[in-house]
């Protein structure tokens, strides 16, 4: 349970980090909170020859509220979201989600950007980024580029971030006032990886669903935004019956893989349940007076 030998660098700026990435190429690996990487190094499943530590790069930590967008520094710890980071539905939603990420000590160390780059299919932040169409600010030798969530997540543990690039910030569009949000996750134990989870946001006007955001996680290679179901919800009566009908389409839209904690068949049905529950929670949230 000891990692293979590696060298270690602790740059203080993005440009220094990029220079180190360029220098070490394929054998270099970025370490952020280390909550996934260090265990896999100890199991020797990962054997980076060089670790480039992001923890001293002040410019990619912290959260900035730009009114319609929340700019989240990649090194922002999960624990930063234990209380709302901004007013309105998005701040409340992030706080609802964060309690499901592993355990309290892990949330003190693990980072928002680290979760996105690791791209575990059961990552809560990846699901949030996919569902609310976050834009990822990626820095490389040739400058900065922004990649939307739809193009960022390539598959299990795979993203658009190149080997010589780093994720600096996440631009998360904020939901306007008036939206209700809901999140539901099922795992074997509290804090375990989700077997299925869903995040939902609804805007209700005149008893009808005026707009919707919906995503489901841990049942495909990466978190999925369910745009067809968002459209199916929109314009329908804001009722649990509507939600149940729409959620019934979920099993056909997901592609879970089975493992020792649950078969693909079970997880397809579970996905329907978590979607319905997240939507119901969002609906209930809409009804709560501001």
């Amino acid at each position, binding site marked *: 349970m*000891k990692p*293979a*030998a590696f060298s270690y660098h602790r740059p203080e700026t993005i440009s220094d980090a990029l220079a180190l990435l360029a220098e070490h190429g394929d054998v270099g690996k970025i370490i952020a909170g280390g909550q996934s990487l260090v265990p896999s190094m100890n199991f*020797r499943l990962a054997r980076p020859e060089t670790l480039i530590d992001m923890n001293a790069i002040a410019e990619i930590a912290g959260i900035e509220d730009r009114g319609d967008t929340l700019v989240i520094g990649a090194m922002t710890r999960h624990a930063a979201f234990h209380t709302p980071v901004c007013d309105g539905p998005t701040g409340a939603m992030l706080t609802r989600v964060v309690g499901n990420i592993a355990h309290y000590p892990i949330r003190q160390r693990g980072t928002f950007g680290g979760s996105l780059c690791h791209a575990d299919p059961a990552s809560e932040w990846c699901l949030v980024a996919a569902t609310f169409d976050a834009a990822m600010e990626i820095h490389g030798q040739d400058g900065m580029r922004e990649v939307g969530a739809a193009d960022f997540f390539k598959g299990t543990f795979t993203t658009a971030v190149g080997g010589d690039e780093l994720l600096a910030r996440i631009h998360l569009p904020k939901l306007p006032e008036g939206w209700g949000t809901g999140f539901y996750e099922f795992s074997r*134990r*509290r804090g375990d990886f989700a077997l299925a989870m869903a995040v939902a946001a609804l805007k209700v006007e005149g008893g009808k669903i005026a707009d919707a955001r919906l995503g489901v996680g841990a049942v495909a290679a990466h978190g999925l935004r369910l745009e067809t179901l968002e459209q199916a919800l929109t314009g329908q009566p804001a009722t649990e019956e509507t939600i149940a009908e729409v959620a019934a389409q979920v099993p056909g839209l997901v592609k879970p893989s089975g493992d020792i904690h*649950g078969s693909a068949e*079970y997880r397809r*049905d579970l996905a329907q*349940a978590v979607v319905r529950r997240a939507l119901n929670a969002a609906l209930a949230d809409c009804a709560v007076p501001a």
Partner: protein
Amino acid sequence: MTDAPADLANANAIGRSLRRIEDRPLLTGQAAFAADLRVEGQVHMRVVRSPVAFGRITEIDVDEALELPGVIAVWTHADVAALPQIDFRMTRIEGLGPYRQWVLARDFVRYVGEPMAVVFAETGFAAEDAADLIFAEIDELDAHLSATADPVEVYPGVETGLLSEPAVIRKGAGDVDAAFAAADRVVELEVAVGRHTGVPLETRGALAQHDPDSDVVTMMGAAKVPHYNRGAIATMLGLPTDKVQLSEQHVGGGFGIRGELYPEDVLVCHAARVLGRPIRWIEDRKEHLLAANHSRDQAYRLRAAVDPEGVILGLDAAFYTDQGAYVRTHGGTVTDLAAAMLPGPYRIPAYRVAGHIRLTNKTPAGTYRAPGRFESTFARERLMDEIADQCGLSRSEVRRRNLIPEAAMPFDRQIDTLGTHLVYDSGKYADLLERFRTMLDLDRTEDALAERRDAGEMAGCGLGFFVEKSGLGPDDLVRLHLSGDGTIRIVTGVASVGQGVETTLAQVCAGTLGIGIDGIEVIHGQTSLIEKGMGAFATRVTVMAGSAVKIAAEALIAKATEAAAKALGADPADLTFDAGRVSGPSGALTLAEAAQAAGGEIVAEGLFETTHMTYPYGIHFAQVSVDPETCGVTIERYAVAYDIGRMVNPMLVEGQLVGAVAQGVGGALLEEFVYDEAGQPLATSLADYLMPTAMEMPEVELLIREDAPSPINPLGVKGAGEGGINGAGAALAGAVSQALGRRVDRLPMTPERIYRWIRG
């Protein structure tokens, strides 16, 4: 409120929830566990383990590893060929010998994780780096993974005819065929318990040092059975017993699996002698889940002959224990206990059982807290529920009708287990059931659950009635040293795995002498300080060592009285002993003064011997709801009733019961060693082997009774170690079964299995 007079407070040290003596070093960080031990010049050992479940070793290439800087030695079987296989500590059954494990694999590997080679290096990092460079060429064979399938050859092509069924344990009493001939109905059931085990949070570890002057090798990091292991290691290394000493430090949990003699213990001692350097080995978590004893994994086929009133006339049972790749130190213990205790608290006048020990290509199995009883209670109590359903009786009523009556105590089951005749020494089973029903308001609880089910909810409750066993002999020795300053040192050969041995024994001593526990020190698990000791297993310490302490303390009183008589010039018959003082007409001496009068110290011994175990008993109750969509189980209420005979420290008893319930919840709902078709283990970290946390644990309500003290030991005590887990699988399965309205025949009840059950 003023403090009670010291004498009054001290007079009843037994039966009080005194704080644990052992907690001060633990809470202040002074306590040393195996991994805290470091000595100058130590060498790190790393075991290279088989990556495949079954195969024949053709070559192990160690050259590259040997060239790595810092590597001192690399051994394979050829280097330790003189060491014999690890022998049985318990339940040696004819024919088991060829199934024992070598210290390092010889010719074949039989499970993923089997030690094939071992590296010694200057640092832990170098040792792991070297282990990575060792390549074994193995001709893979098809893994045999089912204990219920027909037996196969263990060493194909080499030991022809040696099949994977080392033994079948058969027991019985009464006329089973006549019972079935007379039956109104026959109730049949097949059930199985998954593979799981005790997972102490402290993994195994050892530090062995050889002293060239005395030629003694000392291994620190011992646990559970230091005296037995010391003898076994000495035998394996070809040394006189006194050339091996084992020393126990603080131990972070035992649960039956920690402290048994494993290959690694023998390797560190052997290497310390051969390499002439201290050898340190600390197991990592992955190794622990692959290499330390697994347990449970039994499949039962039960047939009960039942009369029209729901009374069992006869039970015909067969079961299969998945022993894994080898038979380890426990021999046939788990299977033997399961066979003996399957009938539990019920009369069952005719009984016949065949317990099959079957090898597979999985990690070898041994005992885990309530071995053979967690499983057999689950099987039997599922059967009772089935009989209740078929006869239209409530679950508590079918049990009540079958319980052994108080008047039948002591109850002779007319079978043997662990070399003792199985006689339940005392019990008021029906009385405990009635008290528990009252505490739970069971009838109303069941009505309320039925209403919830009528309303479409999945909710239910279940009972698990069990008999435990405790206090396995044959003996335990205790020596008390009373010093001139009045302090007392208790030296015992039993072991502490964290269960509160020091506090318990100090309380028995203090209670017998009528003094406080503050000046009492307890030394345990040190083979150099006392010549014998059976160790900590089978819920035996309080019964055996506690009784020995009482006997020793009484001997101490006699000696102190004698010394006081001389000092006071009195006739010993005129002296009385009370609250730590010897008093007579001409004066009184404290224990300290008596020791001074005796020359500065009084030493007294107590040896407690027994040929029978004592049998505590109890009932688990679980109420659950099942989420029909997520298939998750919520434990709404959990309670345990337990008659312990007599309590030494109620707080420790409560802690034992509640802690064991947690492990029972794990085995019932979460924990399982899953293998793929090739025999690769899929739960090799605590991310996949799911132990319950505080978040999964319900509040546990306890009904602890002292209505049936044991008549076979001087304290009347019965043990607390295993009753909290014994009935957990049974009660939770009964509850889930009632919630789902269908038969539940398998543990653990994972969401996946519940999903299948709900969908039929």
